[in-house]
């Protein structure tokens, strides 16, 4: 006999409302049906009333955690419509803030994940270390999470010598702290017992299920948009995608832990190569045409489609966020899993529901 129980929309491990209807046979899941729509705000419609500069601020408010990269992706998509070259310094500033954003997002996720399997002290440690990153971001951009660093045509704020010293000092402490965290997440007996071999996705399955980001890379697929042609700058910075083979919850965790080091390395390299010069080019006129821009967010690939029709307002803005692509994989991985493990599996795709529904 099967029982159907709802998982969410309010659940201790879910920071945001998503509901999963779980079909259970005793305590083993045999089917899952996600239901969305609790935080749909209609932002794709809302841009009708705002011009393309103001839309940057809307895009940044799609998600609180990856806000900088939403803004950067949107502005780069619009710059594609204008066919403008933006100053190199602005690109470097975007990369630095974007990677800082990734560091704090991954630390946040590691904390939530630890909380998900009941490791409260580890949760507090992660969030304590994250606070240092947020303080630096507040010092350089003026806000804790909504940074507004990117505007159409360049960067909105310059990095001063002081800021760079602050970042470098913070990175040194955070790197040593991440080393401590890594020991726990990689070697701890409890963590391993809860995650190894859980919800394994083969390379083929993860690819065909359309997953992106750490979920895809955790299954052994070498796919990170920071290697894509639009992002030449990452090649100069010596970027290497983190890929783990096993495809279970443990390897998805490992991807995120090792990406922290990768991000720290990228920020250091970007600072050492930071060129001098202007931070923005003036942009006149109205966008026409259509363009697709993709970037790698902490949670995976985000796709922005913009279409301008020669007026100040964009005609269409379509955003495919990483969680939107990752949710269907839950339908495939959850069957066969014990009810007690469901929170962990749901958390390993790093669900960001505000992103998903926009």
């Amino acid at each position, binding site marked *: 006999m099967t029982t159907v129980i709802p998982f969410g929309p309010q659940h201790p491990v879910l920071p945001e409302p998503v509901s999963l209807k779980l079909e259970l046979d005793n305590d083993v899941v045999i089917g899952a049906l996600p239901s969305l729509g609790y935080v749909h705000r209609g932002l794709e419609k809302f841009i009708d009333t705002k011009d393309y500069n*103001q839309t940057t*601020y809307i895009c940044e408010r799609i998600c609180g955690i990856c806000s900088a990269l939403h803004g950067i992706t949107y502005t780069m998509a619009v710059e594609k419509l204008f066919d403008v070259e933006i100053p190199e310094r602005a690109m470097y500033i975007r990369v630095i803030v974007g990677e800082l954003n990734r560091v704090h997002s991954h630390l946040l996720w590691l904390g939530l994940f630890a909380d998900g399997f009941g490791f409260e002290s580890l949760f507090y440690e992660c969030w304590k270390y994250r606070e240092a990153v947020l303080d630096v971001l507040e010092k350089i951009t003026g806000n804790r999470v*909504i940074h507004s660093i990117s505007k159409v045509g360049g960067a909105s704020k310059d990095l001063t010598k002081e800021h760079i010293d602050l970042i470098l000092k913070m990175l040194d402490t955070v790197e040593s702290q991440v080393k401590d965290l890594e020991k726990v997440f990689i070697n701890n007996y409890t963590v391993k017992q809860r995650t190894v071999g859980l919800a394994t996705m083969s390379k083929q399955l993860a690819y065909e299920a359309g997953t992106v980001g750490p979920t895809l890379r955790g299954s052994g697929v070498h796919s990170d948009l920071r290697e894509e042609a639009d992002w030449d700058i990452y090649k100069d910075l010596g970027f290497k995608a983190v890929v783990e083979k096993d495809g279970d919850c443990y390897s998805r965790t490992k991807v995120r832990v090792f990406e922290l080091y990768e991000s720290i390395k990228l920020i250091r390299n970007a600072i050492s190569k930071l060129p001098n010069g202007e931070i923005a080019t003036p942009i006149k006129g109205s966008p026409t045409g259509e363009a697709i821009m993709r970037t790698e967010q902490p949670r995976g690939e985000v796709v922005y489609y913009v279409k301008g029709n020669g007026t100040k307002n964009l005609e269409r803005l379509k955003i495919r966020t990483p969680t939107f692509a990752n949710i269907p994989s839950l339908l495939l991985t959850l069957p066969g899993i014990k009810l007690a493990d469901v929170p962990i599996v749901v958390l390993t795709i790093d669900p960001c529901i505000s992103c998903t529904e926009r």
Partner: protein
Amino acid sequence: MGMLNLIIANVSKKPATRLYPFEIRAPFKEFKGRIIFDPANCIYCGICQKKCPPDAIKVTKAEKTWELNVFRCIMCTECVGGCPKDCITISNERPKTGAKEYIKNVAPATPK
């Protein structure tokens, strides 16, 4: 052994949090706290109103009023950069709890 070190470190160190209402951290220099409007030079051109993404600013040229809805304002500083007369500045002080919803500025009647 690692755990023991952590426990000793955590017991001997100060807590990571602050006892908030009694111990307040000074706001950072760059922090976007609140918008300050100086009516002295304002020409009521309305550029700030046009640039404002959440439509928080209302300017009327005829009556010479400038109004900011603080609750709508998202601290994007578009108006600060856009003002041709540098009338709008940003301060790193947080607005006090229970602040009024509107900051309204009506220009004094100009002497004839």
